[in-house]
């Protein structure tokens, strides 16, 4: 019975957060002088109004899901990985380079590009983990700072050595990847691509991994109680490198899927401007690091964003209302953690 109550509560909390977020959004809409109901109706239409918009939302959710999963894994192990943006960018860049320059059949290029993305994102993330494990440098700060270095480095690569000089557009981008290497679209004429399936499978696999495998248990133990974990023989340094590599690998995969499924090239700023990485972190916080919950939260956040775009097309209300709703959601989530903390304290005394 206890299990059922806690299950219902775990559903109730995010729902409550959504309601509070929407209420804050309503205030913001009223401030700029829009009609709340009408605006939200437009928002709904923009996100789920037609099959086209729905698939659009799902394709926007794809990188957010993957990044959220990576961050969730690190959170579960007790590490704050704030470096998803840099990991995603490096993953995207190496995927683009692999797909462009690796010789061989198309399927091999595709697989190699995905793997290259995972590896480079993972190494960049594990580097921060290594700095922490070896030199005790604060992971939260190093991952944040490495973001700037990674995006600037990728920006340099596509502005100078690998810049696309064939087309007339003077943009900082690589050449277009050959059509045979693209991730297939799921429906004709829609933006949704095979990457979404990969993300969905990853969410389920991570859920099973965390719940039913020994390594998953060790990771949860390390996050839940580091002292107990080390007493039980879990090596913190090694686990840190492993979980940070996996965490960055997810972010790198997110970047490479964006490149192979949507952009078809690495375009400077195309991944950082929509704020995929930060949405991913928000999704994780919203779902309390639960893999499946993270996926659902990611779709919700993506819906807020695509809905916001639809709203801006059809009303006077600016798109940024979405970012207010998202921020309030997250703030409410930190209160949610508080709520469980108070409960725990009560139970103890």
């Amino acid at each position, binding site marked *: 019975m206890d299990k059922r109550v806690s299950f219902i509560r775990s559903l109730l909390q995010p729902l409550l957060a959504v309601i509070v977020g929407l209420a804050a959004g309503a205030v913001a809409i009223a*401030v700029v002088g829009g009609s709340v109901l009408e605006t939200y109706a437009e928002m709904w239409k923009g996100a789920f109004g037609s099959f086209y918009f729905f698939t659009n939302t799902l394709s926007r959710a794809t990188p957010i899901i993957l990044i959220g999963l990576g961050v969730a894994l690190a959170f579960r192990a*007790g590490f704050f990985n704030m470096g998803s943006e840099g990991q995603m960018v490096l993953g995207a860049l190496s995927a683009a380079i692999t797909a462009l320059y690796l010789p061989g059949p198309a399927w091999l290029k595709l697989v190699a590009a995905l793997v290259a993305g995972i590896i480079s994102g993972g190494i960049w993330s594990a580097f921060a983990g290594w700095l922490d494990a070896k030199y005790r440098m604060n992971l939260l*700060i190093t991952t*944040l700072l490495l973001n700037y270095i990674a995006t600037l480095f990728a920006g340099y690569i596509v502005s100078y050595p690998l810049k696309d000089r064939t087309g007339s557009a003077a943009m900082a981008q690589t050449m277009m990847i050959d059509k045979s290497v693209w991730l297939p679209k799921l429906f004709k004429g829609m933006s949704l691509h095979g990457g979404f399936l990969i993300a969905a499978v990853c969410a389920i696999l991570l859920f099973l991994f965390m719940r039913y495998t020994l390594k998953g248990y060790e990771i949860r133990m390390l996050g839940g109680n580091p002292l107990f974990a080390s007493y039980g023989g879990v090596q913190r340094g090694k686990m840190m490198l492993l979980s940070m590599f996996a965490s960055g690998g997810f972010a790198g995969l997110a970047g490479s899927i964006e490149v192979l499924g949507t952009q078809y090239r690495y375009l400077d700023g195309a991944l950082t401007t929509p704020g995929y990485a930060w949405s991913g972190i928000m999704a994780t916080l919203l779902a309390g690091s639960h893999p499946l919950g993270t996926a659902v939260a990611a779709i919700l956040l993506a819906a807020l964003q695509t809905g916001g775009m639809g709203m801006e097309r059809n009303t006077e209300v*600016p798109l940024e209302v979405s970012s207010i709703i998202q921020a309030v959601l997250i703030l409410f989530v930190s209160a949610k*953690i508080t709520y469980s903390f108070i409960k725990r304290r009560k139970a103890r005394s």
Partner: protein
Amino acid sequence: MDQLFDVSLFASTLRLVTPILLAALGGALCARVGLFNVGLEGLVLIGAFSAIVGNHFTGNVLSAVLFAILCSLLFSVLFGYMSIHLRANVIVVGIALNFLALGLTTFSLRAIFDVKGAYYNKDMVGLPKWDIPLLKDIPWLGDVLSGHSPLVYLSILIVILLQLFLFKTVTGFRLLAAGENATAAKSLGIKVTRIQYGAVLMCGVLCGLAGAQLSLGNVTMFTEGMTSGRGFIALVATMLGQSNPLGVAASSLLFGFMDALSIRLQGFALPTHFTMMLPYVVTIAAMLFFKDKGYMQEARKANESSR
């Protein structure tokens, strides 16, 4: 080399160091009471934006700065309430605060000024430049030290005052005690929560000033996310300086110098990407060389499972 290290480089160092220094001092105060404030970035961003808003509506620089302080103060109250009163995870609250600051400022930029990305108005008056009498007549030194905004000089004053406050006054010692061991401090009758709130509020004031210097100091404009990681660099400065005002000032100077150098190097033939990378690379390198275990204990104390 002479071209690179000239007077204006050092003068701009002093200008650029101020936002980092003020925010870092705020962070140091929070760290001293056992709160690891990741929300510095958001607080500074709020300060920068509200300074522009205040300037736009009142046309008065002083009231703009006061408005910036007020808004950052409100946000720091939120931070304090969540992390002290509700005992939420300080790091999560800090991150949430950064999100909220970014979302609110971009939204308000659209709602108030009806622009996207950046707001610039050439009629706005920035902070005045003060020429210090006597000092400005000294040949080299005068050019470096004179002609800055009042906030630059204020920040230097704050460093000294804070150093004296923390290590020479009774209240300062109580503050240190509250951070060092909250339970022991409480048993001596020190009002730990009140001291923590005081530190957080002071941090809000300092971050408001930092934001005002950022948006009204050298350029009178606001761009989305214009802090671009300075809050986090300030956090590193806090750690490197071991939350000691003088130490924080020294490490902030290093980062400010790197900031100035990176802007200066853009005039040379180097790709801007690498020059922009410089402050972040140096920050990471500095973390490697100046290891500080103190902040880790503080972070641990504040939140057992944060790391």
